[in-house]
């Protein structure tokens, strides 16, 4: 690929896209230089995903032109876009879980022993896959089934697949939102390798420090319009935020220190064979308790076990001093525990239903009189929380699947906020949410604890736990390995405990 550093690979000229009631993209013109890692940011619903879906042919633009590699792209279809060398890694991965890494990489373009025969050349494919992975410095057994890989590794297999298909442009829509820091670092290394091969990358993320770190240039969208494209050297994180939200955000973690109240939740000797071992902790009213650890350390599993989503093999749970038996999510909700799951599409939302349908789903019977639903009350309540959360949707009867990713997450938050529980467990609550909206969510958490609720947050972003939690528990391989107060928590100490090395010395043992 003999392209000069300043040649344009991609040019959008006044691209406009409308959805019923929404102007998703408003005459956007931008250019992407060949060989760059080009960042794309903006608030939830700014139009980032729409833009890339237009590039991949999933949506057709209403107006405007797309030029790629010196050629005007017209009537683009997904297949055509792939043929031109545009690959995209969506947030929902598209690998086939029961096929191996090699089979996935070669899917649809398998090598055959003879030109016309249909016998696969497995040895050759394995060899090519191995050499490709060596090229990208990716350490992985290509014979593993992709379903057995962690989400981070799956993403890398997708990248291999894209590189192998001779993609000139790889687009990644929020690739790091479901990765741990370590996995994200691996991803950045691979991106660097891909870039070294001359491939251009468009990188979408709400984590601006990442954008700052790996991108050459960055484009900011707001309300479907292009605000600015800058060289990364000329844009600080604060600059980017200002371009995104149109104002300064001085305090990213608006922590309000409150007093610790009564013991809200007590978990004793929680066991789940092969998953959780002797997990014991307490959460207090008026306090935010953070769970830190690597992806797969057992934090989500702990939450699922407490709330009856998974069966347990032993342990006792007390809610405000009362023994409770929780055998199903229903029991947990009845006991006053809300559990906001991390996987919003699979477990959090009914995508084909409206915002108000989803927000009112838990404890729906409370909104009925004489057996009939009070539809107006439901609508008003939803409208209020939608305003509080600054939800961007035409109205509360909009189908959730039509909202942008971050706005879908807000609906999940709204749904659990409305349950009026006394204990809230938030699993990765700010995943995919923009910087401004994050602050709103943190403020809501502050409000919850101020009103006497106990809040537990599970999050992989270290800054977030350290910024918002009064107390931090660290898990490793299904055990709690350390406990820190907000003052004593440092990134090093948490990481140390998260890798299972804190059995003695560092931190207090829980």
């Amino acid at each position, binding site marked *: 690929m003999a392209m000069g550093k300043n040649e344009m690979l991609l040019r959008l000229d006044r691209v406009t896209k409308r959805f*019923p009631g929404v102007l998703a993209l408003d005459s956007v013109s931008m250019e992407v230089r060949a060989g760059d890692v080009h960042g794309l940011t903006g608030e939830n619903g700014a139009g980032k995903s729409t833009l890339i*879906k237009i590039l*991949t*042919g*999933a*949506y*057709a*633009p*209403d107006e405007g032109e797309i030029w790629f590699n010196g050629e005007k792209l017209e*009537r683009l*279809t*997904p*297949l055509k*876009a*792939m043929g031109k060398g545009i*690959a*995209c*890694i*969506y947030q929902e991965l*598209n690998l086939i879980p029961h096929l191996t890494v090699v089979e996935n990489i070669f*899917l*649809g373009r398998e090598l055959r022993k003879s030109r016309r025969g249909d016998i696969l050349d497995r040895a050759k494919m394995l060899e090519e896959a191995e050499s490709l992975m060596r090229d990208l410095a990716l350490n992985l057994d290509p014979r593993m089934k992709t379903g057995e890989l962690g989400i981070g590794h799956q993403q890398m297999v*997708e990248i291999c697949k894209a590189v192998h298909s001779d993609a000139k442009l790889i687009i990644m829509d929020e690739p790091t939102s479901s990765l741990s820091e370590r996995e994200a670092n691996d991803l950045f290394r691979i991106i660097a390798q891909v870039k070294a091969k001359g491939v251009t990358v468009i990188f979408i993320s709400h984590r601006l420090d990442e954008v700052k770190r790996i991108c050459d240039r960055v484009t900011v969208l707001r309300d479907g319009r292009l605000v600015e494209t800058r060289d990364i050297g000329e844009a600080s994180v604060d600059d980017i935020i200002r371009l995104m939200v149109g104002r300064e955000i001085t305090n990213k973690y608006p922590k309000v220190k409150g007093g610790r109240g009564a013991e809200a939740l007590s978990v004793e000797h929680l066991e789940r064979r092969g998953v959780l071992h002797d997990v014991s902790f307490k959460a207090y009213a008026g306090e935010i308790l953070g769970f830190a650890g690597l992806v797969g350390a057992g934090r989500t599993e702990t939450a699922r076990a407490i709330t009856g*989503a998974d069966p347990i093999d032993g342990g006792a749970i007390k809610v405000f001093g009362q023994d409770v038996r929780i055998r*199903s*999510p*229903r029991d*947990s*909700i*009845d006991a006053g525990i809300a*559990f906001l*799951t991390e996987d919003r599409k*699979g*477990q*959090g*939302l*009914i*995508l*084909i*239903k409206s915002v108000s*349908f989803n927000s009112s*789903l*838990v*404890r*729906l*019977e409370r*909104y*009925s009189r004489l*057996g*009939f*639903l009070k*539809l107006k009350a439901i609508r008003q309540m939803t409208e209020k929380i939608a305003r509080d959360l600054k939800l961007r949707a035409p109205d509360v*009867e*909009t*189908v959730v*699947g*039509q909202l942008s990713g971050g706005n879908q997450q807000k609906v999940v938050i709204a*749904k659990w906020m409305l349950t009026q529980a006394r204990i809230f467990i938030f699993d990765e609550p700010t995943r995919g949410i923009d910087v401004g909206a994050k602050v709103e969510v943190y403020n809501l958490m502050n409000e919850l604890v101020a009103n006497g609720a106990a809040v537990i947050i599970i999050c992989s972003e270290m800054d977030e736990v350290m910024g918002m939690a009064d107390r931090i528990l660290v898990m490793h391989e299904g055990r709690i390995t350390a406990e820190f107060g907000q003052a004593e928590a440092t990134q090093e100490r948490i990481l140390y405990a998260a890798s299972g090395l804190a059995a003695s010395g560092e931190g207090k043992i829980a």
Partner: protein
Amino acid sequence: MAHEREAAAAGQEAKKQKPRKNMYSVGVILSLILLSLVMAVLSPRFLTVDNLTNVASQAAVSAIISCGMFLAILTGGIDLSVGSVLALSTMLMGVVCVNHGVDPYLSMLLCLAVGGGLGLLNGLMLTKMSLPHPFISTMGMKMMARGVALVITAAAPISIFPEPVQFIGNNYLGPLPISLFLVALLYACMYLFLTRTATGRYIYAVGGNKEASRLSGIKVHRVLNLVYTLSGFTAALAGIVLVGRVNAAYPLAGQDYDSDAIAAVIIGGASFFGGVGSIGNTIIGVLIIAVLRNGLNLLNVDSNYQTFAIGAVIILAVYIDVLRQKVMQVGRR
């Protein structure tokens, strides 16, 4: 590969827009009117009072069954056993009522209870035995119930029912069959149930996403059991209407009703993936099939060709829907 799936997802998303929902209603109603006009032109007998009441009373049975089928499809499932459940529950009613002289009202209650009970079994096979899909459980039930229905009288029909059993199926209020009022009442109740009660919403929720529903505290198993029980119940209710109309219970009754009900629900625009559909459109679907069958009868078309025609209509209806989505996509270009 990834692109295509995402594109499909985008298409799905587009499918769920609000204006489109109403457009679909308008579409099916127009199709019904158009079909009726064609029939009226082709056969002068079509628009006679006699014939229309005939269509109505035939459609009544189908409409009642389709009600339960709609619920099953709404949860992302299906109930293949409705025709057999109808046969078995009415045969049992015949045995106790006609052969053993049990009180006719009690016999009808028994019929409904048997229908509901068989439906509940369908549900339990799904929720307690964890059979992978209701296609399997209800197909098994379809064959078992039909088998038993044939065995109890060695395949002989039972006839001459007392007046109370015949009441709904055989009587008229002015020119209108009583069964029509039953259908109207049933659909009105079902409409209120689905749109205005918590349980009704839970049915949509379970059809939309079972895991999210469970984690939201919905007792998914209870909802599924209820849905299949209702489906069995409506099949038995339809059976009472049918027995009243022909004054006999046949062990082979209701064989076409499974597929007619599925067809009506699908033509009515319910999604096979669950969570999407409206009961109001289902009744239009029922009427389309009833008019089609009646019209072909008037034109003396052989019943085998009728079966062919209904099959073609199902495919056509779904295909038109697919085409319209494509047109809307292209319109966006």
